[in-house]
């Protein structure tokens, strides 16, 4: 049997390999060398590689992003981390005006090999300022690649591919994925950027999912299978640039599309995927596509409100029913576990 690792351990191993093999790589972020090690993903790396290469930093997100960029311009390959995308909003000027555009605006002379890891996600009352999921923002900015690994395999594979890429890569990691386990090969391998993954193939409806929603989509597919519906689940993996080919091929096959994203629905990733598919394969679509995502309000802290806020597999089942013209499914059975912590059934190994 292949070795099983958690998502956090897979990331850690990816970082470890990059640090080992490429002396230009360094890792920097708040708490990176501390005893919690960014949800376990940087644990112990400072001891192994030294605290010059695996570094803490001041709480100065904006400057430190510029520092990372500047160091990349003289040959380093930084991996910068933020414990929440919400904190990284202080660094948007650097990320959007500078990092994203540097290569282009200076005529293609200077690559910017910079990986920015940011935590998104939910749970335990994270509330309005610790749970945003802003992939649509970064994807809207030409010059940034945006990845969202959903599995331990891809966490490591995309991290290595991102570090090796000579372009800025934004990696968004969902906090409920760190504890998920799955097969992870040893040694260096890559998950190609801009290549979606057919997580489950099917014929009746295409569910395109990002990050943690891939897990919910697979669960929904299981449930739909019991009713004889064959779901194709696409794990998008890279949000920008989009893997249009995989997306369109599946839409053409099934003629029905549901998108499940971790972010706000309005003006979100789902909008682009629906628009792109509609534009490109309108005549193949047999029903209106549907989006599953967050409603138009900030994330509330109270678990009772958060339970309503975050769509789960049942919402995907509902959307698939709608798209398939089936009667609405029975309401979701009351959950046997609290909804503001990761579902233990979801930790894998898968």
């Amino acid at each position, binding site marked *: 049997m292949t070795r099983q690792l958690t998502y956090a351990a897979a990331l850690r191993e990816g970082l470890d390999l990059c640090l080992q093999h490429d002396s230009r790589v360094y890792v920097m972020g708040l*708490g990176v060398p501390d005893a919690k090690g960014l949800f376990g993903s940087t644990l112990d790396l400072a001891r192994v590689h030294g605290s010059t290469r695996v570094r803490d930093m001041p709480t100065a997100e904006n400057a430190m992003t510029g520092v990372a960029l500047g160091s990349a311009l003289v040959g380093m390959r930084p991996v910068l981390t933020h414990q929440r995308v919400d904190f990284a909003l202080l660094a948007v000027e650097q990320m959007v005006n500078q990092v994203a555009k540097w290569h282009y605006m200076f005529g293609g002379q200077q690559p910017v090999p910079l990986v920015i890891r940011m935590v998104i996600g939910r749970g335990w*009352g994270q509330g309005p*300022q610790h749970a945003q999921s802003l992939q649509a923002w970064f994807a809207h900015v030409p010059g940034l690649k945006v990845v969202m690994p959903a599995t331990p395999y891809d966490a490591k594979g995309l991290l290595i591919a991102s570090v090796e890429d000579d372009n800025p890569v934004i990696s968004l990691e969902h906090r409920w994925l760190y504890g998920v386990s799955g097969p992870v090969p040893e040694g260096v391998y890559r998950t190609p950027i801009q290549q979606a993954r057919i997580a489950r193939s099917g014929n009746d409806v295409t569910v395109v999912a990002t990050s943690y929603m891939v897990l919910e989509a697979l669960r929904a597919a299981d449930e739909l299978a019991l009713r004889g519906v064959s779901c194709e689940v696409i794990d998008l993996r890279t949000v920008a640039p989009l893997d249009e080919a995989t997306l369109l091929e599946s839409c053409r096959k099934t003629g029905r599309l549901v998108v499940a994203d971790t972010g706000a629905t309005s003006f979100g990733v789902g909008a682009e995927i629906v628009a792109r598919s509609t534009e490109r394969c309108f005549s193949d679509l047999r029903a209106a596509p549907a989006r599953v995502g967050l409603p138009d*309000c900030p994330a509330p*802290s*109270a678990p009772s409100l958060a339970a309503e806020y975050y769509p789960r597999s049942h919402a995907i089942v509902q959307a698939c029913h709608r798209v398939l013209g089936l009667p609405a499914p029975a309401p979701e059975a009351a959950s046997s576990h609290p909804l503001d912590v990761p579902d233990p059934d979801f930790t894998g190994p898968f």
Partner: protein
Amino acid sequence: MKRDRELLYDLLVVRSVEQEIARRYSEQQMRCPTHLCIGQEATAVGVCAALRPEDVVFSGHRSHGHYLAKGGDLTAMLAELYGRGSGCSAGKGGSMHLVDLSVGFLGAVPIVGSTIPMAVGAALGFLLQKLPRVSVVFFGDAAVEEGVTWESIDFALLERLPVVFVCENNLYSVQTPLSARQPAGRTIAQVAAGHGVETESVDGNDVFAVQRAARAAVDRARAGGGPTFLELATYRHLEHVGPNEDVSLGYRSAEEVEAWRARCPVEHATRVLLERGELDASELDELRRRILRDVRHALELARDAPEAQGSLLSDVFASTVSPIDGDQR
């Protein structure tokens, strides 16, 4: 100004609330990140004692003490931690988003440094409205690493705004010591002074000293003398977030924690009042018992209140408008 006994009372309340939260947190009913201020109570109590009810306070992630010291409603705060509809933020915010408008506690949010410019803005609002009010913001030692802090201080100076910047320097940002974050050979107060703001460094565990310094700053601000920066030295006893001790994490030594526990602000104030004879041991016991009873009562009220329900999509927007020619209609 509060009398010294009142200060002690307030310290005991904050301590008791935080201890009760810590005790109950493991029941997993307060399901939100919770940053306790045990060991730092004197900064909150001392500063807020120098304020008038109409003065305003902003804070950050570690705000329970500030909220309570400014007079915030205890039950509403605990209900917020419990995710209740009766919480001070209707359950939307949790521990990291406290507010009590009725006492001028205008809000706390957990983005480091983020309320500092808001406090300055409130002070600008007071100036524009010619209101003799003062705005205060509490923040930690990490906040001075954020550029927005200096932008805010500079603007407060430019406009001579009635605002007091209160830096609670507890030496750590999560597990990272000051030495890994800020240059050696300078104090935070020195940097502030370099920007030209009136600055004072105070023992943040001496509630009397804190109140004195705050009073001077607040008076100056109210009199049009502009902003003041207070650096208050203090220490957090428990882990960064959550109810536990954390010496096992290894980022600070047991000796260091012990040394600071010996400088506990609550014990310090107690000792002073006992020594002065303004309080005797039995009164103190009685006070503690009464406070504990009240806190537990509030906790039960909060815990037993109904969960926030049905309000997910409410209040994204205010539904009101304020016509500019309102008086003409």
